[in-house]
């Protein structure tokens, strides 16, 4: 009897813990980030807090050559005049300067995507920040392990 009554309580606790983790996600986007990177992101977002949603950031998990790392960013969006992604900014957390590139998008593209190749000096997180037509921000990050660095070498 006692075990039976305990189980649902545990389930309820686990569920609430899950909710807690979800509500903390916007903070996690900035966790363990270099001050220069966080500052560069805030120069774009101002006081707005980015949401971790709708962005897919594709990068290799391991880059043998940091001088040439393929990057692809896709954002879920209908890309219509009324609802589209205006920009995607990409940052490298531990490069000499955090900014990598800013892509300016328009509804004429039909899909919110941009691909390029980047330089990463050391193993680090790459961050993608998308700006919606109405001034909201979406964020995603991915770690790339760099075998041979790509800055100054």
């Amino acid at each position, binding site marked *: 009897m006692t075990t039976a009554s305990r189980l649902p309580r545990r389930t309820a606790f686990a569920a609430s813990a899950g909710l807690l983790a979800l509500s903390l996600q916007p903070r996690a986007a900035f966790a363990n980030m270099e001050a220069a990177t966080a500052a560069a992101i805030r120069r774009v977002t101002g006081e707005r807090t980015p949401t971790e949603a709708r962005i897919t950031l594709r990068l290799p998990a391991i880059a043998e050559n940091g001088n040439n790392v393929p990057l692809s960013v896709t954002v879920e969006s209908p890309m219509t005049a009324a609802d589209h992604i205006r920009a995607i900014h990409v940052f490298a957390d531990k490069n000499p300067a955090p900014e990598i590139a800013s*892509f300016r998008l328009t509804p004429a*593209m039909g899909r919110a995507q941009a691909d390029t190749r980047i330089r990463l000096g050391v193993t680090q997180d790459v961050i993608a920040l998308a700006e919606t037509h109405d001034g909201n921000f979406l964020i995603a990050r991915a770690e790339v392990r760099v075998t041979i660095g790509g800055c*100054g070498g």
Partner: protein
Amino acid sequence: MTTSPIGQPRLRLPQQIRAGEVIEIRTLISHNMETGQRRDQAGATVPRDIIRSFTCRFEGEVVFSMELHPAVAANPYIAFPFRAERAGTLELTWTNDAGEERRLTQALRIT
């Protein structure tokens, strides 16, 4: 101080494009993208010299643009989607730190 030459730009479009199709426009331009972080053999810093912006227009309207920083790899590869509704002219422009431009125009045909 001389700027490094902006090399030949290249553009790749699908062989056949249907009206309304979202295609991928793939571009490449040769440029060494000098970061400004590197030192030469004498220990002097090699000055920064990069392609700093790229713009794609269709029939004069901006479709897509990009601001590049030194962390973009040498010989910048840039690819992006475009909804091809009708035939027209694509115009791509790359600009370096000195403000020099390289332009490429290409007819987009609908099959």
